[in-house]
């Protein structure tokens, strides 16, 4: 039994069948990659997992509970964090503030008024946030307005914001899209490090096969809204169906 169980999920947009009969099982403390050609339904599936979309049929169970019908913030509170393809951070806030917000969310839940307390009095949280910034090598940028940072830094910040919540499941949406090779390798190293240091399950959507095969413990190939195969990386590499899907669709 995996920590995330997707059963028979289907989703239509008007006449377009975006997902059908998707079954997926992500085991705890593994890295599970979801790959597939453009338009295969990867993003739709991801959106169904985090509450942005509600599937027309099927079920999504996380840690024994259904996520369907829950809002994104409720799902996050269950322990799922998501990193976006284009970094979603609080651009108007400083790096440190960006880190503090998930700390509060993790401690206080989805809403709590702390209208007159001073933020910097939360010593424990500040330390925790600083430690995390040290971990991702951004402590020197703590006072910076996050919108002014480079794209790579923004992505690292977003990752750090997700990690500081200690999620059970981390969803990564093309974490290396548009990155230079060196940055990509850094990201891979970072993710490897995270995987080693923490008890965390990661689901990753990725185009870059180099990333996928460096990280993944298990791979699901999606094509035209349906999973083709789900297997270990070494078995996927030479799989005829996968070749067909990629070569047939995107040449």
């Amino acid at each position, binding site marked *: 039994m995996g920590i995330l169980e997707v059963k028979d999920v289907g989703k239509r947009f008007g006449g377009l069948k975006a997902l059908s009969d998707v079954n997926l099982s992500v085991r705890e403390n593994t890295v599970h990659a979801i790959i597939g050609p453009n338009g295969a339904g990867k993003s739709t599936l991801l959106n169904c997992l985090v509450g942005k979309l509600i599937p027309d049929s099927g079920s999504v169970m996380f840690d024994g509970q259904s996520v369907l019908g829950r809002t994104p913030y409720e799902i996050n509170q269950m322990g799922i964090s998501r990193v976006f393809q284009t970094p979603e951070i609080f651009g108007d806030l400083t790096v440190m503030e960006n880190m503090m917000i998930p700390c*509060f969310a993790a401690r206080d839940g989805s809403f709590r008024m702390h209208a*007159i307390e001073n933020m910097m009095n939360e010593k424990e949280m500040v330390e925790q946030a600083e430690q995390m910034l040290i971990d991702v090598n951004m402590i020197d940028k703590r006072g910076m307005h996050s919108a002014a940072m480079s794209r790579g830094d923004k992505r690292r910040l977003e990752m750090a914001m997700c990690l500081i919540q200690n999620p059970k499941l981390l969803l990564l949406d093309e974490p290396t899209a548009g990155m230079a090779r060196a940055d990509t390798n850094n990201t891979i190293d970072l993710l490897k490090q995270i995987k080693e240091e923490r008890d965390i399950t990661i689901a990753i959507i990725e185009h870059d096969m180099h990333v996928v095969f460096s990280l993944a413990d298990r791979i699901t190939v999606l094509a035209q809204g349906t999973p083709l195969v789900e297997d270990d990386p070494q078995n996927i590499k030479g799989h005829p169906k996968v070749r067909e899907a990629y070569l047939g669709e995107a040449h």
Partner: protein
Amino acid sequence: MFGLDKKDTSLLALVAILTLAAPFILNPFPTNSGLAQFNAGYPDLMQRFVIFGIFAIGFNILFGLTGYLSFGHAAFLGIGSYSAVWMFKLLSMNIIPAIILSVLISGIFAVVIGYISLRRTGIYFSILTLAFAQMSFALAYSVLTPLTNGETGLQLTLEDPRVLGQSATADGSIPVTNLFGAEMRSSFDMVVGPWSFTFSVGYYVCAIAMLLAFYLAIRIFRSPFGMMLRAIKSNQTRMNYTGLNPKPYTLAAFVISGMYAGLAGGLLASMDPLAGAERMQWTASGEVVLMTILGGAGTLIGPVLGAGMIKYFENIFSKINDNVLHGWFSFMPDGLEDLVVTIIHPFVGKGWHLTLGIIFMLVVIFLPGGLVEGGQRIAKAFRGKKADDNKSASTEPAE
């Protein structure tokens, strides 16, 4: 001090000094000099400065922090005023119960209007709040007249059934609003040489209310709650995916700013027990928006400056008529005097709107951060080229 860091403490101290010394600061010109026209240190205007300051500070908690632009905030000001006047009519001339009621009632209305309006964002939210306020105004002016006294505005009468206190004083007039006996209207004049300074009880009550409101606003700005509000303005998607529900945060901000408006309305009625429907018209809502932007949205002190600026023009410039102009320039030869008066004439008196409009444009063109930015530039010029990676205290959470 007071749980604030050094910068904020000094800002608060500065505002406190300015507010408490306002009767001096606003009356810089000797009473019988020609420039006395520019003196603003009389009780009514000083009260308006701080009351509209409170209104703008509250509005800024919503708009400056969350970015939600309410175009109907005047409704809460009006509701606060009506509640306070009713309290004077029915209960007591003491301002404390009146102000408590106005804050509460405005808060209740804010919960309802906010809950509905916050189902939408951006311009759709603005129009929803505008619609609610305009409905309040139109109804208060017409069909709700039994409750609001319509066009004339709700006033005290000699027949009010005041439970605690008398309907009329022994000499047959309406009693005066007071704070445990200290009448809001009483004042003292201090004459120093050619200067004359007026200290009014009402003003100091308002000033203390504003200082408390300002202090609370600083605490909110620096609190985790304030940070959450800025986070909402910055990125609602990330907010959601960080496990935070933006709705209650924005609603809380909306209600807090509604209660600030209610406090302002209650104070207005306490200083002058009349509540008119025009207080709720869209122009009044627009005024607080302009005050906030003019001063600098999202800054602590900006809205207060903006409020002061607009009220100053409304009350001082509108009173400069041709006679006054001729008085000023009477030292010139006749022809030149008339020329100067003719040139200035369109901008003062009945033309005060024109001057205000020009100032809006100039400020927003040359000082994108509002008056606060002007202050910063001046301060910077004085400080010289001192490195300033730490911005001045008041502008931390800028746009």
